[in-house]
């Protein structure tokens, strides 16, 4: 175990220097080197916000099933199936039909081709809608995969819109990721005021233009309260929605210095808007955002240029945010913040300081103890500990891993536990020295016998680290990563570097001078 060929030695140290070199990349400030890799600081160290958002698809599915009402009725009528008690309850359409019409209905409903009512989803081998028959009562609702398709589309669209909103605010390096089927993870490093972004993400921003009616007999209107407390009867018919907007910008009104939002419509939007305003001069048009009327101006002249202005009772900041929301488009479903973790930059700085301090102190204490306990071999253990740390940081740099506060704790713990491999070996050698005459032999046997124990002992910790990495989130993942990599570098440094250094000492000294 103490014999090293020149090639062995070369490989051991070349690998060490290659990996160790990466840890120095963290010291450079500018990115002018060919290899631009660095350990990232976690949100808990550099400050920032972690948000976990969840989409709520229930309202969307309710809307979608509502959209099915007309097609279903149409198909029933055209196939001369009579129905009664047609109603929608939550996410289910129910009605009664004659018993002998049921087969006829099934044929239409489960037609794989040319079925505009119930689309067959190839990917899941399932229909979009499902049905249940109880006596002569028929229930129609979205199937599991139908709901999933809606959900996935909504999630994808939400991520896109969130990205647009966050980019528009101008944060540096945001992370926006899908998490499972319903959740979106947003990480905003270095952000000072997460409240603004939270408010922006919390708004659906569904904008529509609808007419205000005075005729209470007219079909399809609802009562909405406007910003200034006025109760308005607003038609349910949407003239034009936020989808037709191509741009929106905040601006200050020249006359009264009141902030407002000017918008530009696309071709279809301008046509619709022009036609409606032309026909309804003198009436009021309600600008409705998330079921709230922000303003309801009176139409004085037809607006045909495709440009308009929303004035309301808002500050310039609010106008800016409204314009941003309108530009980014409406979220398909409401978003809830189900988890939030924000760390201020000063706490992050303190954490780095205290983490580094405890790392240095822990390192020094262990070093002193090892020299006290094992003299020359203590120095070897310490050198290998140092090599261990360099490689650990080097690998973290190569992976561009995220260093968190628990991650620093993992490094400190590695320092404490890393000497174990060397201690196991040295203690074994000590025992062998009692019976073995040849010192070289004793070291040889010691290393050999300790090998299995060292491996067994470290694999157990590695298993714990892997499970922790799989289950942990955020900072805890950082801990598992440093702990796990720490074990690998520990094995390397103890078994190659320390063993080689030991062989140098042993081969060049007589037994009496070897003091373990």
């Amino acid at each position, binding site marked *: 175990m103490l014999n090293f060929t020149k090639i062995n030695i070369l490989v051991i140290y070349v690998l060490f220097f290659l990996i160790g070199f990466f840890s120095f990349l963290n010291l450079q400030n500018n990115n002018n080197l060919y290899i631009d890799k660095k350990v990232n600081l976690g949100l808990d160290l550099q400050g920032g916000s972690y948000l976990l958002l969840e989409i709520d698809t229930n309202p969307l599915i309710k809307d979608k099933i509502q959209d099915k009402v007309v097609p279903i009725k149409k198909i029933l009528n055209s196939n001369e199936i009579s129905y009664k008690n047609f109603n929608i309850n939550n996410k289910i359409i129910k009605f009664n039909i004659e018993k002998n019409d049921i087969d006829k209905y099934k044929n239409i409903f489960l037609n794989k081709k040319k079925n505009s009512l119930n689309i067959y989803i190839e990917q899941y081998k399932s229909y979009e809608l499902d049905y249940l028959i109880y006596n002569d009562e028929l229930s129609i609702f979205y199937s599991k995969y139908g709901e999933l398709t809606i959900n996935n589309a909504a999630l994808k669209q939400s991520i896109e819109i969130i990205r647009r909103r966050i980019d528009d605010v101008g944060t540096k390096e945001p992370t926006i990721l899908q998490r499972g089927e319903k959740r979106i993870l947003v990480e905003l490093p270095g952000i000072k005021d997460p409240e603004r972004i939270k408010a922006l993400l919390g708004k659906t921003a569904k904008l529509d233009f609808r007419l205000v009616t005075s005729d209470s007999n007219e079909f399809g209107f609802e009562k909405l309260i406007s910003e200034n407390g006025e109760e308005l009867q607003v038609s349910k018919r949407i003239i034009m929605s936020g989808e037709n907007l191509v741009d929106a910008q905040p601006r200050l009104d020249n006359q009264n210095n009141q902030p407002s939002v000017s918008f530009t419509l696309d071709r279809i939007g301008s046509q619709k808007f022009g036609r409606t305003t032309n026909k309804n001069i003198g009436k009021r048009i309600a600008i409705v955002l998330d079921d709230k009327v922000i303003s309801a101006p009176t139409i004085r002249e037809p607006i045909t240029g495709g440009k308009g202005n929303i004035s309301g009772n808002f500050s310039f900041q609010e106008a800016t945010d409204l314009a941003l929301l309108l530009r980014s488009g409406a979220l398909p479903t409401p978003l809830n913040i*189900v988890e939030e973790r924000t760390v201020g930059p000063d706490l992050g700085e303190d*954490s780095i300081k205290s983490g580094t301090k*405890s790392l240095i102190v*822990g390192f020094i204490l262990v070093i002193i103890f090892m020299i006290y306990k094992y003299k020359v071999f203590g120095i070897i253990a310490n050198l290998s500990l140092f090599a261990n740390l360099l490689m650990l940081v080097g690998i973290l740099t190569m992976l561009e891993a995220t260093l968190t506060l628990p991650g620093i704790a993992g490094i400190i713990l590695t320092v404490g536990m890393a000497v*174990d491999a060397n*201690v*196991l070996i040295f203690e074994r050698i000590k025992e062998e020295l009692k019976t073995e005459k040849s010192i070289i032999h004793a070291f040889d046997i010691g290393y050999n016998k300790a090998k299995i124990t060292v491996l067994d002992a470290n*694999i157990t910790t590695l298993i714990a680290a892997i*499970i922790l990495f799989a289950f942990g989130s955020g900072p805890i993942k950082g801990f598992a990563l440093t702990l796990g990599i720490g074990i690998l570098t520990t094995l390397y440094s103890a078994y190659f570097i320390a063993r080689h250094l030991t062989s140098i000492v042993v081969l060049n000294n007589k037994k009496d001078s070897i003091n373990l």
Partner: protein
Amino acid sequence: MINNFKFSDHFKKGNIFSLVLFCLSVFFIVFKGLNFGIDFKGGTLIELRVNDKNINIRDVRSSFSNLNLGDVNIKEFGDRGDFLIKIEKADNKNDNFIPKLKSSIKLNLSNDISFRRIEKVGPKVSEELLHSGVLAICLSLMAMLFYIWIRFEWQFSLGSIIALFHDVMITIGIFSILSFEINLSIIAAVLTIVGYSMNDTVVIYDRIRENLNKFHKVKIEDIANLSINETLSRTIITSFTTLLALFSIFFLGGEILRGFSFAMILGVVIGTYSSIFVATPILKTLRVSYKTIEKKEEEIIP
């Protein structure tokens, strides 16, 4: 160092001690319960620093009493005017309550405030976190059981898992007795303890197996004594250096790592003790002898 200490004479005392501690832990966990942090219970946590030394907990509390936030727990720590506010409420729909709370504190307390940490965990997420935490601990125990079963015989596997369970329960039990908070980092600590304690047990087991092979006729008690004594200085040195590192985190690593390092310190002490006084006696109870490992010998030693 005493190199022929008769540990086996004290196994019984150790077992009784462990049993009492274990039962006490279970008793406290069941009847007193655990002090779950917001990670597992849901709620809102705010850490703030005020630069006015005259501000006390009562001032902080009254600065937002108008908001009716329900159960609020406020703690002062450190010597620089740091406060930790814990609120049980984390209503999903009402996303406005944190900014409202912040402005209310700023308005009524002092303008010279920094909000150092804000965490909000919704009820659904906290339930999932608890679930996955418990699952992770169970999985790691099972993985250890399996690993030792492959590497040793089932008796060793059973012995080590009982020792691990003992360590985990007593660590959590002490957290219950002291009402210390259980959060995500404590789960991380418990998992690390599982790894560490296993590591310690494996070293002794390895030596027991080796000695069983060497001395076929010797009684298991004596094999145990010999093996523990032979590995004792390693056990002590490694625990000591690990504790050096952990105490360094405990005293210098700041408030966030304090609970974690405390759990780890407990775990290292209990884990070291259990390798000797729990894991090893079980081998005796299970009548492990040379014959137990005989069949497998050729496969194991390379």
